[in-house]
């Protein structure tokens, strides 16, 4: 018994370190894109830093400050009603998991949907929200709901919403900058003034500029893949953490089994926050893929059962 928590603790620490590395990689990627654009247009790097960086930071800030409202309204979620027995049990379970995690109790929301799903949102633990679908409340038993809530509580405790919104911000900023660069490039080519003062420089410079252009094309794809990778890692982490909170991995495993046999029919919500749901509300990956936001459910169940 004493050995178990230590093991999971180490696992969590490793996951946190990995995520930090990935976040660092995202920031470096963003900087590289800004420099590459500067190179293509022949602008000195420091000028690009003065224009590109504020644009990118502003974009991230906007994404961050509107994330909670946009998630709630996109999901068409409403506050849970304590008069309803099912929703009252949900409130109870959220209170219990908050105690287990040593966090303030999040607000409890319900989303009217036949699918089995749940998500967490909020910038920090003090103003977080946990939301479950009515389908989940009807089809899951108490131990399974507890497992799901434990998973969501772990997303809150690990500050996943923060990491995910920042990552979404970086992905968006890179896409935006690449888009702007291309429009300028095409416009420049059409008017016969491609690439700033590039014409006078030698053959070597053209190759560098070509590489920079290819990099700008690939960067949005890169950043998106990294985002998916972070998302998948965070899912495993929240599964492990959630199981540690409930001390009952089987509850979450059973809930995931039910989710697996209940493919999404009634998707609501926004694609940006899909990683914060317990299972992707839009489509389910059955095999391991670099394009999916969640790891395959079978693998998650297997890992939970081997704890």
């Amino acid at each position, binding site marked *: 018994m004493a050995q178990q*928590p230590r093991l999971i603790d180490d696992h969590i620490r490793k996951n946190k370190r990995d995520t930090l590395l990935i976040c660092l990689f995202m920031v470096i990627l963003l900087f590289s894109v800004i420099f590459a654009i500067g190179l293509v247009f022949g602008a000195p790097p420091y000028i690009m830093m003065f224009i590109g960086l504020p644009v990118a930071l502003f974009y991230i800030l906007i994404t961050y400050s509107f994330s909670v409202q946009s998630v709630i309204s996109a999901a068409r979620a409403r506050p849970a009603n304590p008069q309803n*027995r099912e929703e*009252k*049990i949900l409130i*109870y379970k959220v*209170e*219990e998991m908050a*105690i*287990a995690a*040593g966090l303030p109790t999040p607000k409890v929301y319900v989303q009217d949907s036949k699918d089995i799903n749940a998500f967490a949102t909020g910038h920090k633990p003090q103003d977080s929200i946990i939301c479950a679908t009515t389908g989940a409340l009807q089809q899951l038993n108490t131990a399974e709901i507890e497992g799901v809530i434990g998973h969501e509580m772990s997303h809150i405790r690990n500050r996943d919403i923060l990491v995910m919104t920042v990552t979404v911000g970086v992905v968006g900023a890179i896409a935006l900058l690449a888009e702007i660069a291309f429009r300028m490039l095409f416009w420049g080519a059409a008017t016969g003034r491609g690439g700033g003062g590039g014409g006078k420089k030698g053959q070597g410079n053209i190759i560098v500029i070509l590489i920079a252009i290819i990099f700008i094309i690939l960067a949005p794809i890169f950043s998106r893949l990294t985002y998916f990778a972070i998302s998948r890692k965070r899912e495993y982490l929240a599964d492990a953490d959630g199981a540690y909170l409930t001390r009952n991995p089987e509850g979450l495993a059973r809930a995931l089994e039910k989710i697996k046999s209940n493919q999404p029919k009634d998707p609501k919500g926004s694609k940006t926050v899909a990683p914060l749901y317990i299972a992707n509300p839009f489509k389910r990956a059955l095999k391991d893929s670099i394009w999916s936001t969640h790891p395959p459910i079978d693998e998650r169940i297997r890992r939970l059962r081997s704890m």
Partner: protein
Amino acid sequence: MDLATIIGLIVLVVIVVIVVWILSFYNKVIRSENRIDNAWAQIDVQLKRRADLIPNLMETVKGYMNHERQTLEAVTKARSAIMTAKTPQESINADNMLTGALKTLFAVAESYPDLKANQNFLQLQDELTHTEDKIAYSRQHYNDSVLSFNNTIETFPGNIFAGIMGKKERQMLQIPEASREVPKVTF
């Protein structure tokens, strides 16, 4: 720069690193000790809450279960044990007593269909189960906090400074195996 300056700088850096480490270690110990105290306060709140629900429950079942004198008395006795408990372990033991007594009471209630149909009774039953779960989870959080505190002060090199600070290993709350089973009240 001569050699003496370089050595002086290195020594300075090493000293600064050590001082920063000691400060952050000190804060970590204090923080995790506070977390234990807070975790205990949580348990206490839940225990009181549970004890407060008992008179209501008694009021509700009185009309139906007059013949179950022994069962009712056991619950009342356990409740007053919670109210008078002084140490954490005493409180936990009293709570275990109450859990057992309530388990019997709810089992006996099965044979009173009128009582089982009583909305008030059902609600109290839900709420008592919920408080029971909350107690279990706050106990778990307490033990988690104790574990992380003990790990902090007993691993090297923290153990040296923990000794200087006079911090000793904290005890986890011991729970008898049988009382891990929460009274099964079906929803």
